[in-house]
């Protein structure tokens, strides 16, 4: 049996659950929206601007560093899986790989890109 059939079951289940939760609230709960009620919450003060604030570039930096280190982790997983067969050769290979990346990591730290200020 294909091992991913349960994934489809969970997908269907998730959507059904979401629909049921939404449906329950829609059918059972009262519905009388007023302008004051549906105003986005800002501590009771009428909102000044929309929520589309410009956000900091730091989040972008975090995201791109995440992708790069994520890829590194995946390569390490591949190596870990083949580790018993590759032996010292594999260890040496990954050391070279890691030394290059650690150089990058040290550069990031030295440039202060990980400082959240």
């Amino acid at each position: 049996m294909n091992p991913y059939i349960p994934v489809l079951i969970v997908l269907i289940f998730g959507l059904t659950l979401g629909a049921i939760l939404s449906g329950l609230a829609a059918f059972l709960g009262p519905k009388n929206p007023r302008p004051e009620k549906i105003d986005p919450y800002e501590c009771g003060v009428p909102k000044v601007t929309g929520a589309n604030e410009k956000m900091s570039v730091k989040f972008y930096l975090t995201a791109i560093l995440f992708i790069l280190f994520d890829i590194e982790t995946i390569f390490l997983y591949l190596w870990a899986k083949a580790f018993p067969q590759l032996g010292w050769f594999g260890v040496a290979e990954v050391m070279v790989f890691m030394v290059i990346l650690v150089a990058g990591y040290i550069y990031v730290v030295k440039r202060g890109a990980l400082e959240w200020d």
Partner: protein
Amino acid sequence: MGLTADEFTIQFIATLVKFAIVAGLLLQIPPVMVWVERRVPAMMQRRKGPNRVGIFKWRIYGLMQSLADTIKLIFKEEVVPEGAQKAFYHLAPVFSVFPAFLIAMAIPYGPDIHAFGTTIPLSIIRVDVGFLFIFAVSSLAVYGVTIAGWASNNKYSLLGSLRASAQMISYEIPLGMSLIPIVLIYGTLDLNKIVEAQSHFWKWGVFLSPVSFLLFLIAMFAETNRAPFDLAEAEGELVAGFHTEYTSAKFAAFFLGEYVSMFVLSCLASTVFFGGWQVPFFSVQKLDDLTGFIGVSALIGHVTLMLKATFFMWLYIWVRWTIPRFRYDQLMSLGWKYMIPLGLVNVVVTAVVIAAFRFS
């Protein structure tokens, strides 16, 4: 693959049954946890906590409070904020529940059952990428948070969701790195095989790779946005974070997602570091032959795993009421500056030590 039609039918029905049991179990978690999360701090602070609600004269320590809360939440009005992105606003809770449920399907809940002429594994999704499947799915959990925050058209929601998503992606790397030594030690990505390899008490992951366990534990708290890393919903600054604008059943859905992912990570921690369904100093798989009933071993193994997971759930609450919240810059520098280098060193040291022993 190589299954006859009969076997296929049995496996399919078994999958449905297993799914129903696990889904039922997971849906029970939020009500119980909400109750525990009110009673335990009450105990720690010498208060009483909710103890009144009951059916007729049976109060059961106020356990019915959760039922009352659930019913209340369902009957509350659903307030959709003005200017919200309707479709995404309604879909976000589904996005946050779906990954947690999917990971729960990959956990081995007990030893294989040999019945009806085939072997029925007690994990529902069993693929040879094991861990990677779990990471892949858990990386999708970011979207529930991001979409909820963005679709609400509320500044607090947006800020909370940005913080939460940046935090979740930052701690995914230490989480992934912490498990590489485990793969090196046991030589497999398959969770079931990892549990089988931990048959001896002193071969549990926590003894063979304690640093991994430490990293995993910290990353686990950060991934679920729980205290001391609950920056995303720091009440003092962000009201309630990304679910500020959610009410009634959808608010409950976010609770469901949060508690299920806590439970799933607890199960994963028990599976990888504490022997999963293995009982210390005792071979569970022999129980079938000893008692003569098929499935006794599965039951005992399952209860063992649940007890171990319960410990971690308790730990979540214990830590929440013990350690104060971090600042956001402290949180990010802990993840990026300390846990990633520590994780890399851990991988290298483990690899060299194992290689020295095995390949010398």
